[in-house]
């Protein structure tokens, strides 16, 4: 761990670091590419909507020795429709029949029970009318839209409008990527998927908020110094919170991985699996976008502000003048870093005399 701790420290001090903002064009490119792929996948392959969205019946049996093909024959005979039968991890069968209404599916259930020689009560049935899935999905989209509006307003108040816009773009990006992956891989979209997708909303913003918070702090008195440009400080914010972002993402993914493992491995297909799958994809996308997209985007947007434009000019001019004094960004101790502590001290320099009292950092 000491290595990691040390890396954390060096990241914190800005001794090491990756130039996220400087290389943003590359990452924008990557993201645009992924997004386009996702959209193309969506347009060409479309989403494979689960039975819940088309209307139909899903029956789950108890443990049974009946073979898949046998069950398929039974189901098709009983319903007169095509049936998809899967064997789940625990020797139960999952029989999906689309295009039957709820009344008809009762008969099918009874017939299946006879064919499979089990008690009708032991067959679990999930019967869905064709418009129910649509209603669920519509409400979900509605919720999504309302949430986006509110969150942009809130972030604009908590941080500022440009950050809110960047967060919004990152969020849309996450959702697009997640949906795109579903289209490309052909995962089935169920209400569980929708739930997972909606959860990403709050969650994908978590890391973004952590970085933005640090950024807000570090750029408090940015115009009062002429050492760094906004983009450079933004980059340092990403680097100094990198450990945090990685940790929060890993910790968020662990329980989801547990769900995915149990849901997929033990129960076979089902709600747990659907939720955790979309969460997993979405969380990964969210972690990526908070680092590579959201913050560089803020830097881009901010550098268009006249005062920051002017600052950039000043900084560059100063560096050109006094070459021996300047150091490349993101490397070197930050002398003139903007005061970023809680009650801001006006002025670029904080008094260096007041170094921590006590014997902080004393090596034993």
């Amino acid at each position, binding site marked *: *761990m*000491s290595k990691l*701790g*040390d890396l*954390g420290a060096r990241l914190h*001090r800005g001794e090491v670091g990756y130039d996220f903002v400087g290389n943003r064009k590359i990452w924008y490119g990557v993201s645009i590419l992924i997004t386009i792929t996702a959209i193309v996948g969506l347009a060409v392959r479309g989403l494979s909507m689960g039975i819940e969205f088309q209307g139909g019946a899903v029956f789950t049996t*108890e443990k049974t020795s009946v073979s898949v093909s046998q069950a398929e024959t039974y189901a098709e005979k009983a319903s007169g429709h095509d049936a998809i039968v899967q064997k789940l991890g625990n020797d139960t069968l999952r029989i999906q029949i689309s295009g039957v209404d*709820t009344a008809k599916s009762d008969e099918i*259930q009874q017939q299946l029970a006879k064919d499979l020689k089990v008690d009708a009560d*032991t067959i*679990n049935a999930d019967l869905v*009318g064709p*418009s*129910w899935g649509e*209603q669920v999905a519509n*409400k*979900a989209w*509605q*919720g999504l839209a*309302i*949430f986006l509006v509110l*969150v942009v307003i*809130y972030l604009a108040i*908590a941080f500022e409008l440009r950050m809110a816009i960047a967060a919004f773009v990152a969020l849309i990006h996450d959702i697009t990527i997640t949906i795109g992956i579903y289209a490309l891989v052909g995962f089935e979209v169920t*209400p*569980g998927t929708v739930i997972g997708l909606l*959860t990403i909303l*709050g*969650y994908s913003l*978590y890391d973004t908020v*952590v970085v933005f918070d640090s950024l807000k*702090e570090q750029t408090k008195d940015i115009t009062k110094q002429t050492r760094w440009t906004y983009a450079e400080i933004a980059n340092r914010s990403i680097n100094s919170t990198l450990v945090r972002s990685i*940790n*929060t993402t*890993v*910790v*968020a993914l*662990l*329980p*989801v991985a*547990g*769900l995915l493992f*149990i849901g997929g491995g033990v129960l076979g297909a089902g*709600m*747990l699996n659907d*939720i955790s799958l979309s969460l997993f994809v979405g969380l990964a996308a969210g972690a990526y976008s908070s680092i590579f997209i959201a913050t560089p985007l803020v830097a881009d947007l901010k550098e268009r502000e006249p005062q920051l434009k002017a600052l950039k000019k000043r900084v560059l001019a100063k560096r050109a003048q006094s070459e021996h004094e300047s150091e490349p960004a993101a490397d070197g101790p*930050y*002398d003139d870093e903007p*005061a970023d*502590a809680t009650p801001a001290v006006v002025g670029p320099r*904080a*008094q*260096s005399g007041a170094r*921590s*009292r006590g*014997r*902080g*950092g*004393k*090596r034993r």
Partner: protein
Amino acid sequence: MAAPKKGRSASAQSKPGRALALILIALVALTGGMFASGHTTPRLGIDLAGGTSITLTAVNEPGQPNAINKTNMDTAVEIMNRRVNGLGVSEAEVQTQGNENIIVNIPKGTDSEEARDQVGTTAKLYFRPVLASQVGTGATENPTASPSTSPSGSGSPSPSKSDGKDAATEPGAGDSASPSSSPSSSATSQGRALTDALKADPTPSGSGSPSAKASGSAAPTATPSADEATQALQAKFAALDCNDPKQRAEAGKGKNTDTVVACGQDNGSWSKFILGPVGVDGTEVDKAQALLDTQNGTGWQVVMDFDSKGADKFADITGQLATQTSPQNEFAIVLDDEVVSHPYVQAAVTGGKAEISGSFTQEEAQNLANMLSYGALPLTFKESSVTTVSPALGGEQLQAGLIAGAIGLALVMIYLVVYYRGLSLIAIASLLISAALTYVLMALLGPAIGFALNLPAVCGAIVAIGITADSFIVYFERVRDEIREGRTLRPAVERAWPRARRTILVSDFVSFLSAAVLFIVTVGKVQGFAFTLGLTTLLDVVVVFLFTKPLLTLLARTKFFGNGHSWSGLDPKRLGARPPLRRTRRSVPADPKEA
């Protein structure tokens, strides 16, 4: 809340013991409440406990664009509730969800098929003449005054006094104890109320004297002829025990043209009836409303308007009934084969407008009015989804969810231990406190607001483990940053807090916002998930503020942590802290440092 006060909030920082005591007391109190209430486990939803869940969606009928509104939905819920619980189904739940859905949850062990048939169908309301009745015993002591029916020509409720019951028309024999509150239906064509005949009432007598209208229509014969069918019916009637739910469900069935036996409730006890063929169909009631009669102090009454066909039929039937003696002067209002009211008639109601008055409470009057208005369900419903889960599968899913949760929790703990060493103790303790609070609240919310734990809610709780742990990470990383700056632990803990606090609040607010929006907007399974997520997010804030931070403050005073033992996770050396060289230090808030 986005930008909390800068600086120190005295209570949390200087008195860590107090905050810890507070949260522990809260936990103990809640746990005590949980045991006291007897609900020590969260209520389980259908998908975990087994049973059937039916989602019905109201269908917009052409020509009635505004039919789907709260009033109608509530009425539908009430009618369905009557039906499902009339089946003897225990603990069936009927509730609205969103603007247009009704969810019916039927626990395992009940006849879900039957219940399904019942809930979605349209209710049937008929007026049938009463041929014989035996009023249940065990009723309340106070005979309630009988509702009376009188036509009102105007919209204004007409005064009618019915509390003085005509002793002569009282069913004297056979049911002395019976408070048979039979509404008298008196009629006047002028919309005057007709008072009870025996009462010297100062009502201006219009035409309201009860007179048998010899309407030539086929009135139901109210005299059972002694043929076989009748004898069979009599036998059936004698055998019928309305206190038995099974028999109740069987009673009242029969064609509209048949004479049937039926059950009905009078003040909480069951009565049984023999009813003649249907006289008026409930669909012929135009509307009915509950009104408060302020003029004569008769209290709440129900005013019915019939359509023209219904008005004619009703005039006939009441004309017939008015000539009879009790109980054959009563007509029964039969909803779903059950007698909901049986007012007696004193005169034909000819105006197509009748009122039933008596000592109704407001609720009773409104219920009756609803039933009369919507003999049928006020809306048409279609089955959107039906989920049947066997208890075995439900148990399996619950188990899988719990195992997944345990695995998730264990993985997170392992990661925290590896990365944070000693600090992870604090994080793990906080996680456990969160878990305990979540569990207790879920158990308490079952009886309190009808919260039921379903599979998505379990998922929400598992996902929340990560969200909760994230808050600790944000804080710990801040503390470590402060140590890297060269601070000793105690000031580092205090200085890191305000900033970490802001980050945590903003992030959690965003999470909570998404949960709240989803909870309000969405339907079905998404809602259960959103609820858990919102609950755990709130708890996260509480735990971090009242537990994690004070605990860290306390532990910072110990030798192990305070001196940065290499296993404490706060070892300056390991964190790569350096003695400051020429770096400026961040400006410090002027807080008095503890020595």
